[in-house]
């Protein structure tokens, strides 16, 4: 186990290094930089600013210096929000993103998995079709449509939840963004769960259980759930990382001060330190999520254990 852990860790480091290098040179290939404003900055000022950030040096020198600083744990400061340390950006915004991601994932799991199990149980009935139709709609309608609709209905008309804004201490403000963000994943999860459950339900041991007179509910929950969840679990890990890094639309609709907006804005302005830090952070997140998924997969699926 430790060997696997260690080798996965090393693989992760290599992936991060490659990610860093590719991202760095892609940023340098951008046709614009962070010091472009509505009103042009005079040449002599621009030169000074670029010298200040070492942007006048050859790219390989900048690459070496940036990598060195990162290894020392110094991610530098933003160039778009000039002077704001990248670590401040992350410590301020990342908890919001994580919080939103966790709640959204909870929504996805609590909605998606029961719906999938239910559909599998009522296979090929009106309930099954109904549930899967809802899921299909959930996948198809983009969040920038669902979000404003929810905000208009439950925020403005019914006044149940605030229409925008985010407060770490007020769970009410989490609900709408989390539902919007989690809905697509919930839909997808329900389809995965249904498929997994159906496959498990068709296996011989289920027939044996039925023959022995085990109740339908017990078959579903005790005998099949664990096996039926394998595809869903394999999806949850990467989906969680994707939810956290891909919440920019929701952040915009609900004015959530998360990392997504920083990321997009940084890319729009060529803000090298922030792009690099966030790409690495998201990269690390995905690596960890995948790893956890693999471990969970092994725990759920005994067949994988024997093969190792």
């Amino acid at each position, binding site marked *: 186990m430790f060997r696997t852990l260690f080798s996965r860790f090393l693989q992760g480091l290599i992936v991060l290094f490659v990610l860093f290098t590719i991202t760095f040179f892609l940023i340098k290939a951008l046709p614009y930089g962070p010091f472009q404003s509505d009103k042009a900055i005079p040449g002599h000022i621009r030169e000074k600013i670029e010298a200040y950030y070492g942007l006048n040096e050859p790219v390989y020198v900048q690459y070496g210096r940036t990598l060195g600083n990162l290894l020392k744990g110094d991610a530098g400061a933003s160039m778009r*929000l000039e002077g704001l340390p990248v670590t401040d950006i992350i410590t301020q915004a990342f908890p919001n993103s994580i919080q939103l991601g966790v709640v959204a994932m909870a929504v996805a799991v609590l909605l998606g998995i029961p719906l999938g199990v239910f559909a599998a149980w009522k296979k090929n009935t009106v309930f099954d079709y109904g549930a899967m139709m809802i899921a299909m709609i959930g996948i198809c309608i983009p969040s920038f449509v669902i979000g404003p609709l929810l905000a208009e209905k439950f925020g403005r008309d019914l006044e149940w939840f605030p*229409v925008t804004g985010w407060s770490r201490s007020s769970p009410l403000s989490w609900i709408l963004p989390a539902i919007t963000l989690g809905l697509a994943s919930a839909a997808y999860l329900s389809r995965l769960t249904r498929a997994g459950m159906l496959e498990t339900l068709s296996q011989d041991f289920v027939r044996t259980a039925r023959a022995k007179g085990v109740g339908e509910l017990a078959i579903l929950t005790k005998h099949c759930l664990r096996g039926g969840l394998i595809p869903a679990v394999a999806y949850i890990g990467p989906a969680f990382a994707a939810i956290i890094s891909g919440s920019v639309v929701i952040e915009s609709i*609900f004015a959530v001060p998360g990392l997504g907006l920083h990321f997009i804005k940084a890319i729009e302005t060529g803000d090298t330190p922030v792009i690099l830090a966030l790409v690495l952070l998201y990269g690390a997140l995905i690596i960890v999520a995948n790893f956890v998924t693999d471990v969970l997969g092994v725990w759920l699926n005994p067949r994988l254990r024997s093969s190792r």
Partner: protein
Amino acid sequence: MTRCALFLLPALLCLTGCQKETQVEKANRDGIFLMGNSSEPKALDHQLVTGVIESKIIGALFEGLVGDDPEKDDGLPPGAAASWEHNADMTEWTFRLQPEGRWSDGYRVTAYDFVFAYHRMLHPDLAAPYAEMVYPLKNGEDYNKNLRGRILLHANVVPGVTWEDAKDIAFAGDAKVALEKGAKWPDSTTDAQRLDFVKGTGLDALGKEALEWIAADLTRYPWPAGFDPVKAKSLVDVMAAKAGDDLFELANVGVSAPDELTLKLVLREPVPYLPSLVRHYTWFPVPQHVVLQHGKISDRFTEWSRYPNLTGNGAFKLKIWRVHDMIEVERNPHYWDKANVGINGVRFLPIENPYTETRAFLAGQLHTTYQVPSDLIKEVKKKAPQEFRQEPYVGALFVRVNTTRPVLSDPRVRQAMALAIDRQQLCDYILEGYFPATSLTPKMGSYEPDKILTFDPEKAKQLLAEAGFPDGAKFPRFTMLISRPSARASAEAIQAMWRRHLNIMVDIQNKDWGSYVSAQQNLDFDLAAAGWVGDYLDPTTFLHMWTEGNGNNNTGWHSKDYEALLSKAALEPDPAKRLEVLKQSETLMMSAYPILPFAWYSRNYMLRPEVKGWHPLLLDNHPLNTLRLER
């Protein structure tokens, strides 16, 4: 599971039921003004930013010499200065500061803070992007551009050499050579490399080591023919001795403080609109004692401008700053006019998405919004007619033309394109609330430019035919750049008008903002939908940019006559005559059609009725200290 949900739902409803009071109602009780402010400010060090979003917050935290009048655009209420006077030709101004002026930490606001502020603003190493706003200060430009030779020679500190003697020297060099690192060359540098460097860089940018190296053998620098070696030696010696020094004193920049409460400004030319100009945040003071506590005068972005160090002289002080979430300011207990501050604080909410912002307003989360997107205007007018505001704003939308492109270089073609735009239709159907532009500068105060732009498709066709394209035949297919989705509708309308009236096709290309800007700066475009918003209420804020080499021109067009008229206006002390000359210059520029203006801005936003003391203002700089919130 379903059972679980059945329990959860009523629980949630219970929770939500408690939220009876809207955020605005609570804010009304607390005296907090909730303001949608579009996006996160780049920074709050007002000497290092250039934006409009920043100006709203900076205006709450700092106060300029002259205040903003809540009702009148040309009202000039006292600000940090209680009174001011000027000499006959408006080149020397004396401001007397408020005797009770205090920073938010209780220290006195003195004239020395202003001297320090303009020193810092112009400091070459600070590289303030908007330093040119304070170039009206005499010698400010020389100092900011670090023209060291010129400064030293003008200050008469080089024995035996005058500026006349030395004016042929290429102080600024002509080639771009990598900047010298620190004051030392690496040991490996060869003499040939050094010669190249010295030749390309020019004396002004050389460090101590390089200058001493030249002093050791004067032939190492390409002096103008016949330049006296004795004078050269004297000059290089002084420059080496002063290398790396801050030349602020020697530059004799036109700002001084005869005493603690008197600020004297000497200008390079008459500036009759100075009181209006100093309302811009580039002219605001900085607290010397705080800035220096957190770094040198020339350090960019030190901790001084962050919470909790940020210290201002405005009616409010910084209370909370959460990036992309909110900035809140509260009463400054030391503000000189604190008795007349009507609210307890302001919360600036950086809501990027205008649809979200409008929704937040309608749900009672904001007192005012930054903008209503044009496709929501009809809806909002219906839903909240009382709250919807539509007011003129000093800005213009135009199509920028690259006049260096073949065909577009023909003024007749540009004029034809200008004449074929039906501005009234644009403003009726797409740019709701905007005004059809008849020139570039919108009417401000007593300045109203000639009406150049009309809609005349017949004449347009005729001009195009004269230019060699009868009925648009063989007219090249140009591309119009846009960068914001909101610009697409008007760009498409103009595209259609040109096709209909001139029978020419133009493509529209959407570029991300950075590429859009750099394409224009490199003159690598045909046409671009662009806009400009004035910084102060004087036509020069629209006219100065069309000069040769100005970074905001980007049309390839320039004219000696135009620049001569601008200089003439700059030297004209009589305000009425001055505006007349500026009007002539605008007519000259507009008749060449380097840009095709089509609309003057209006600001579409929402404001709640309980906000009192908020009036339409052309510059949209609403003083927040005079607002009141009715319960």
